[in-house]
């Protein structure tokens, strides 16, 4: 039992260790240079949680797809498209329209992957390009001038009891995902498909429907992230989702989810998200140039994965 627990929790423990290490290194740096412990102040940590909630929402959806052994590369322009169309529609319909766009894109991805059986990596990549093309066509390649509606800004910027609203949104979504993954048949089917889709199919699971559902949820999460992001910056802009794709995948994998699917816990994704956001923030406070930031970012991912020692020899 103990060995079982350890094997499951090891990535999460290592990731938590890294979070503490990053905070310690950052604090040591500010203590030496400015004589303060900025990184341990509640304001700073809450601010980071707020920034993390955008990535966390994307990573939550991405995790559902990765657990099935698939991937969604259409996230960047799903985020941008739902944000742009939501701000363009405006009024009380803004948020529902944004979410509907995300669900629609996810549904389309799911149709391609589950029914046409195109490899998800290449199909979602194509969908991403089409979405970018559509948005360029609609906006003429410029940032839309429309503003985010007050409810969108409220979700992203407001505070409740001193805690940013965005963190509540992330927490609620997380509860929903945990419930889905651990307490519903759909969650079990997602893991089963990740382990072996043929086996899941033979056990009577309608695997195509599950894949369709998971991709739709991933699209919804991307749309939610787009709405939060445009609320945060008050408007939508071109390529606003681009910086979220690779960090989201990295957050999921650092959290111990197997990229081939079938294995991983949601808590790991949350820790992975926080780790990546803190790493980026601490490096920028240390005034590390972009070059150094990229190098350290890559090295940390490699180091952590080597520490996990997962991924047997048989997996190509």
């Amino acid at each position, binding site marked *: 039992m103990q060995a079982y627990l350890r094997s499951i929790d090891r990535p999460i423990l290592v990731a938590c260790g890294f979070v503490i290490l990053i905070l310690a290194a950052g604090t040591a740096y500010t203590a030496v240079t400015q004589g303060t412990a900025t990184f341990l102040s509640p304001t700073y940590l809450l601010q980071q949680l707020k920034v993390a909630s955008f990535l966390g929402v994307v990573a939550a959806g991405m995790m559902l797809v990765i657990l099935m052994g698939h991937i969604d*590369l259409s996230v960047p322009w799903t985020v941008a498209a739902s944000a742009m169309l939501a701000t363009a529609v405006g009024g009380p319909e803004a948020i529902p329209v944004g979410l509907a766009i995300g669900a629609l894109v996810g549904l389309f991805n799911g149709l*391609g992957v589950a*029914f*046409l*059986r*195109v*490899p998800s*990596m*290449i*199909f979602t*990549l*194509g*969908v*991403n*390009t*089409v*979405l*970018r*093309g*559509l948005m*360029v*066509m609609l906006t*003429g*390649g410029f940032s839309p001038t429309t503003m985010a509606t007050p409810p969108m800004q409220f979700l992203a910027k407001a505070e409740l009891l001193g805690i940013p609203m965005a963190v509540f949104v992330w927490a609620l979504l997380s509860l929903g995902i945990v419930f889905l993954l651990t307490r519903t048949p759909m969650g079990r089917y997602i893991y089963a498909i990740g382990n*072996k*889709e*043929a086996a899941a*199919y*033979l056990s009577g699971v309608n695997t195509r429907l599950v894949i369709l559902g998971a991709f739709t949820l991933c699209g919804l999460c991307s749309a939610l992230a787009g709405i939060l992001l445009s609320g945060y910056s008050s408007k939508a802009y071109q390529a606003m989702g*681009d910086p979220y794709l*690779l960090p989201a*995948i*990295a957050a999921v*994998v650092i959290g111990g989810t197997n*990229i*081939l699917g079938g294995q991983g816990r949601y808590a790991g994704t949350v820790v992975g998200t926080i780790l990546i956001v803190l790493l980026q923030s601490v490096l920028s406070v240390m005034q590390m*140039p*972009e*070059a*150094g*930031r*990229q*190098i*350290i*970012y*890559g*090295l940390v*991912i*490699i180091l952590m*994965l*080597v520490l996990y*020692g*997962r*991924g*047997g*020899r*048989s*997996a*190509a």
Partner: protein
Amino acid sequence: MTTLLRMSRQGGLLLAIALFVLFYGLYSYQHPRGGSADLIVQNANETFTLALVAMAQTVPVLLGGLDLSVGPLMTMVNCLASHLLTGSGWDLAFGIVLCLCAGLLAGFINGALVVYGRIQPIIATLATGAVLIGIALFLRPTPGGAVDSDLSWAATNTLFDVADTYGWWGGDLPGWFQAIQAIPVPIILIVLVVLLVWVPFKNSVTGRGCYAIGSSEQAAFMSGVAIDRSKLAAFTLAGLFAAIAGIYLALQTGSGNADMPMAGGYTLNSIAAVVIGGTSLFGGSGGAVASIIGVMVLRAISFCFRVVPEDSIVGFLANPLLQPLFEGIILLAAVSLGAARVFTVKNRLQLFG
């Protein structure tokens, strides 16, 4: 019968060739200087870098993996080359060798992470890609650099310009050379890379091992294929191809540019080209030459949009704002073509293979 069988297996590749002939034919027909040597040189230059990056992508894909670091590696070598490709003949030769070695080393590290670190290729190369972009930014914080202009001119024009630039035969070209002098250098370079690097690799024990691993790693292991060696070799070879692409981009643009979106674009386009060429993303079938054809299809399509007559019924295609949309739709349509299989299988279990 066997020919027919082989052709049906190469269906993806044949389709790609047909698409290329169709689109490039349309382009040449519409273009005022269609078929002229200048235009072909220009098109070959625009194709070369992506073709090499797609070749680099092909080798890990044959294993059933994916290399997300080909674009960043190409960019890193591009920045390195913008520092090294100056000076006398020996300096240039040394610089090129150094750039190639950098590519080989980066590819080897990818392979080592996959083989010894036991990290999934897609994640390992995602991380090394970030590191490589970091190194590229370190080498070239802002775009720039000085590349030897003679070499740059010679590498991006026809054979005649090479002889002209370096004064071969004192300007008195022999007859056999005049017969081939109109061939663009990039085409010769890519044929050389295929004949001297890819074909020997593909036919070697290690190269065939890569195909075997892609088909079934377990079966390959049972048959005594040196799995580790094949994987290391595959990623190292990918590094070499990406390095050649980087050097060529430096020669073509005369500078180095650590452009992150460009690196990502090359990686994604390389995957698209590999798929259009008919190489299976699950590994085991396909090849680098097919990927070159995939790149030619992609490029021919984008060339076509340049020459659409604006006053015809398809004039709306010429709208530059619509180009990204059409590129996406074509990519999506191309990859969905493989879906035909779904409607022919009798037992749905076969779909999960």
